[in-house]
Each structure stands twice: as structure tokens, then as C-alpha cells.
């Protein structure tokens, strides 16, 4: 520390180390910040139909059973925004048990919420964004199904985590027409 450049070097390296400690402290204390979000999902109706073939360009593909959901979402997620929140990722999944597979999860709807203004959700009669179809192309044997809303805060510094979820039961009725038919 006997001359200007020595002091400059020593200060700068200690400042960089302290900056790293600061970043680690911020990322570690973020999950401890309390938040009080309110969320509710109400299911209005479920319609299942035998839909189009799974792959329209493959003649040997079979038509599958698709479920079309109509639901409402009421949520106020603005309290989940703290200084370290970059955005919130809200998504709705259908979880169920099927013969041969213990856990099945299909994401049927999602949304990116970028600021507290967009965080007040009031959705009425929304349909699922993504098709709800079982891996086995039919809902036969599917049980214990429920519809769950998850919120993922994405931080600026730190790890992502699944903060909260609200779950309602979902019944998947069988479709009228036969599923598993080749072609149309």
C-alpha cells in the first residue's frame, strides 16, 4: 500500500469481493421476503371430443381424445413483486394418474407477468392455451385429476422456485366418439 497503484489494486480487489458477497446475500435472502398473494381458479366446464390425428402428416397416426377446459382465474399477485423479482411465471397444469404412469402433468395455460400492474388477474371463461391430451391418446383409466395454478417468481439474482399453488379437482369425462382410430 506504499504507492498509489498498490492502494488502487488492493481497494479494487476488496471491492469486487465485497460486491460478490453482496450479490450472494441478496439472492439468499430473497425467498425469506414475505408475500401475500391471493389466487383462485374456478372450473366452468370440461368437454372432451375425439379430435384430429396426433400428427396430420403421418397417415398411421391415430385420433386422440382432447379435453377443452373453460375456467376462471381470480388472482392478485402484486405482493409477490419485491426488489429482486424480474417477472412472475403463472401456469395452470392438469395433474392426474393414468394406468402405467404414476404422475402425469400437462401444462394447459401460462402467462408471463412483468410488473405489479399486470399482476391483477381477472380472467373469465378462458380456454386452455395448450391441448390437454393423455399420452395414451385416451382418458380411459385416468383418475385423481386436478387443475393446479402455480406461480414461479424469476429473480434478478438467485435461483428460481415454485412459490405457491392452488388446486381444484378436475373430472375428465370420456368422449362420445371412439378414440384411437387411424387417420380421421
Amino acid at each position, binding site marked *: 500500500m*506504499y504507492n498509489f497503484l498498490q492502494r488502487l489494486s488492493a481497494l479494487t480487489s476488496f471491492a469486487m469481493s465485497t460486491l460478490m458477497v453482496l450479490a450472494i446475500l441478496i439472492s439468499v435472502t430473497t425467498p425469506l421476503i414475505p408475500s401475500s398473494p391471493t389466487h383462485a381458479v374456478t372450473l366452468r366446464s370440461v368437454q372432451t371430443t375425439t379430435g384430429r390425428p396426433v400428427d396430420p402428416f403421418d397417415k398411421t397416426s391415430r385420433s386422440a381424445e382432447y379435453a377443452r377446459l373453460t375456467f376462471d382465474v381470480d388472482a392478485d399477485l402484486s405482493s409477490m413483486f419485491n426488489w429482486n423479482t424480474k417477472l412472475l411465471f403463472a401456469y395452470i397444469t392438469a395433474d392426474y394418474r393414468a394406468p402405467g404412469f404414476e404422475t402425469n402433468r400437462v401444462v394447459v395455460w401460462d402467462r408471463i407477468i412483468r410488473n405489479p400492474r399486470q399482476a391483477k388477474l381477472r380472467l373469465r371463461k378462458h380456454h386452455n392455451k395448450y391441448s390437454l391430451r393423455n399420452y395414451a391418446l385416451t382418458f380411459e383409466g385416468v383418475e385423481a385429476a386436478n387443475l393446479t395454478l402455480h406461480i414461479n417468481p424469476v429473480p434478478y439474482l438467485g435461483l428460481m422456485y415454485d412459490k405457491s399453488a392452488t388446486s381444484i379437482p378436475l373430472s375428465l369425462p370420456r368422449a362420445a366418439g371412439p378414440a384411437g382410430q387411424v387417420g380421421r
Partner: protein
Amino acid sequence: MDFLKPAFESGRIDFEGQNLASTLSTLLIACAGGVALAVGFALQRLDVCFYAYALCIVAAYAVVLPPWPFFRRHPLVWLPRKGRVYASTASSSSAQSRRTLVEDVSDDDSC
């Protein structure tokens, strides 16, 4: 690399001053971290946190980097000059023997 010499030899401070500079720099930078965290969390803005940190570091530079007088309160006490040592050259053609300066133990003019 001689053009770098003035840069490397500028801003010298004595040993007590170096101790003070070291303690002061550790204290100031640790406080900068604490202050930045507190200010950023109070305002709930991450960018303000890092701007405050940068500002505090610049303030720490201003306090520690220049050779302020309070870093030079305890200058080194050197022993008194012993004098110059000359050697006479034996093989000299001229009448006068030339003296060659071998060692000059004068003070180092640093600090």
C-alpha cells in the same frame, strides 16, 4: 518501461499511514456493502443498491488513494549521513590521481 516509473513511484506514504490506509479501506468498503444493501432494500430497487455501492466505493477511493497529509504523519527517521567513499586509481598518467566515487550513502529522498 521507464515511462511507467513516475506512476509507480507516486503517492508514497509512510508505514503508519499504510496501516491506516489498510484499516480505513477495509472499514469503508464493508460499510459500503451494508449501506448499499440497506438503501436498496428500503427503496425496494435493486439498481439503486448497486449504484449506491459504486458511489460508496468512489468515496472510499477519494479517502484512501491520494497521499493525504494524515498518511504522512510518521515519516521515516534515517540515520545521519556517513559521507562519501572515494577510491584513487593507481594507474593514472596524469599528475593528479582521479577520484572515483564508489558509494554515496546519502539519504534516500523518498517520502
